[in-house]
């Protein structure tokens, strides 16, 4: 099963090596060797990290590195566009480094370490067994050999500029990362954009001292409400996601053609220009493919293949004393470490909640909603629960603590027969937090 999950990541690794081999075509053997060594280093490093810090920290570090690489792509893209659109010839410090002989090895090594680390994160939570790691490195090595053979079959005219190489490598790394909800960048990015838009509007209205409801009509809030919707986060995230590659495409499109003014014969002059234009077009191929990979990563992030544990809420009733009692054992085993959802109705009101035995062996009872987002509920996967609305991951260790996007905790007691919750408290907690939040989102009326 793990091997199947690794297929897209190894496919990405193959793509990374292929593009590196073509990008550094003069140094095929050092690049291939460095690739294998770097990947192995990445695997070992991530394994050690996951064993030392089994919680979110390890994943946070790997995700931070991937995010850093994405930022580097932004810098590269802006520099490339600036370079190719400015009239004055300008050499950046980074470009001097690119021309250095050791650059290929450093670039390949860094990329391979990250790719190895991402693959290791896909193994079971603790980083897998030694045998799994060895098999992973072996598979990566075989794929490097396959890439060496495949690269020779690519058309000789298919050249890769350095910004395009960067775009392709980062796209494939992000695609790999998108297969893990804890390494994925696109969903958190969308969420950040959404929260930024939300905070901006809020701050704007506050700083302009615009009262909420005195003279602004309800329908106007309908338009302003657009800024609070899912679409803002998604499309804002898409812009940030795709812009670097688009900038690189533009930079290639704006590359100056060689000067042919000194060539007397018109046909020769035009032939040189045509060849330069053709080469420039071919150089667009890799960034265009990178754009597709970016789209695939965004799709995987929006529709993850991760199967969330998301049981249908079981209706429960309160005892005459006004207590909801969830038995520890029975049809549902509360102590299996999974979240179990319940639905309690009282009069015209209802509350959805779940009970979970967290990794430290303590029960927690929480609403299936937080105090910020729409009450879309939570799913459980890979040692975390995820808010379906904003895709925030919450480690199981912190479920039960109030604040942020965490599920709203509800007071309870654990007795021998099960978990006891006060029914009125449950209904009131839901009414005071979730429904109040929903009202504000709908325009404050």
């Amino acid at each position: 099963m793990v091997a199947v999950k690794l297929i897209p990541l190894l496919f990405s690794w193959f793509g990374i090596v292929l593009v590196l081999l073509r990008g550094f075509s003069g140094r095929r053997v050092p690049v291939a060797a460095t690739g294998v060594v770097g990947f192995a280093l990445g695997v070992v490093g991530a394994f050690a990290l996951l064993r030392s810090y089994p919680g979110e920290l390890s994943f946070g570090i790997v995700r931070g590195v991937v995010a850093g690489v994405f930022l580097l792509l932004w810098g590269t893209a802006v520099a490339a566009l600036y370079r190719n659109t400015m009239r004055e010839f300008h050499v950046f410090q980074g470009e001097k480094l690119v021309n250095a002989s050791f650059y290929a090895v450093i670039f390949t090594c860094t990329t391979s370490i990250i790719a190895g680390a991402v693959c290791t994160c896909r193994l079971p939570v603790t980083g897998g067994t030694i045998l799994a790691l060895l098999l992973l490195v072996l598979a990566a090595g075989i794929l490097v050999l396959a890439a060496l053979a495949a690269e020779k079959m690519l058309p000789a005219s298919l050249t890769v500029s350095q910004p395009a190489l960067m775009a392709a490598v980062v796209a494939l790394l992000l695609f790999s990362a998108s297969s893990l909800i804890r390494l994925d960048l696109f969903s958190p990015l969308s969420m950040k954009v959404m929260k930024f838009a939300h905070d901006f509007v809020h701050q704007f209205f506050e700083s302009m001292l615009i009262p909420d409801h005195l003279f602004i009509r309800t329908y106007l809030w309908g338009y302003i409400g657009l800024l609070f919707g899912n679409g803002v986060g998604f499309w804002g995230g898409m812009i940030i996601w795709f812009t670097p590659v688009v900038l690189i495409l533009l930079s290639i499109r704006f590359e100056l053609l060689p000067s042919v003014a000194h060539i007397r014969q018109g046909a020769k002059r035009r032939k040189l220009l045509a060849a330069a234009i053709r080469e420039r077009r071919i150089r667009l191929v890799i960034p265009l493919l990178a754009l597709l990979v970016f789209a695939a990563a965004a799709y995987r992030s929006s529709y993850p293949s991760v199967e969330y544990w998301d049981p249908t809420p079981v209706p429960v009733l309160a005892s005459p004393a006004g207590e909801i009692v969830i038995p520890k054992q029975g049809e549902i085993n509360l102590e299996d470490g999974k979240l179990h959802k319940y639905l309690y109705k009282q009069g015209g009101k209802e509350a959805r909640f779940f009970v979970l035995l967290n990794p430290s062996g303590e029960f927690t009872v929480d609403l299936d909603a937080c105090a910020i987002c729409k009450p879309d509920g939570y799913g459980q996967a890979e040692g975390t629960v995820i808010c379906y609305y904003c895709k925030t991951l919450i480690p199981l260790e912190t479920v039960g603590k109030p604040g942020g996007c965490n599920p709203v905790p509800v007071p309870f007691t654990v007795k021998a027969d099960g978990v006891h919750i006060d029914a009125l408290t449950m209904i009131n907690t839901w009414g005071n937090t979730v429904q109040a939040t929903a009202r504000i989102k709908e325009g404050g009326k």
Partner: protein
Amino acid sequence: MAPAIIETNGLTRSYGDICALKPLDLQVPEGEWLSVMGHSGSGKSTFMNLVGGLDRPTAGSLKVGGEDLLMLSEDGLARFRREFVGIIFQQHHLVPYLTAVENVMLAQYFHSVPDEAEARSALERVGLGHRLKNRPGELSGGEQQRVCIARAIINSPKLLLGDEPTGNLDHKSTVMVMELLKELRAEERFTVIMVTHNQEVATWGDRTIYLDDGVLVREERMRS
């Protein structure tokens, strides 16, 4: 003597049982103006099509500009035609809905990239500076043929082929076209192979070969 730009050895072209060109051995030195004469069906156009890479021989060898045309793929042959040969047809074959300058630019487009200034300049060289924006239907036969010449030379070919280029022209226009070709050849130093029925046109060349029923029957060198 200049090195040969065209070398044929036993060059043959058959269409089924009909042998349009019987084994032909010929050498054309670089820069020569060769006239090819013969009756209808004598193999003149077949010879020209083979030399221009428009057709493939059935047997023999054919080297043009050092390239063995038999060894070239379809793409290679297309490149050869694009970069090495300029052709002027009797029927002009201009695109009727394009202007004179656009017709010339079309040849540039298929060769590399269009360059309007250069196309205009080529038409000015053939004396059509005032007809740039006219379509073929608005030009006389001689003018159309001059557009064809501009189109044929725009990509600086090493070999200019003419398939009865003056066949449809009156005497005055014929002389004008031939004078123009002579001038351009002196400037550009290309080799000319001119297929013609017209003895007078043939005399503009350095050498004339006579084909009859696909066989080279006679060869005549003109006095310079």
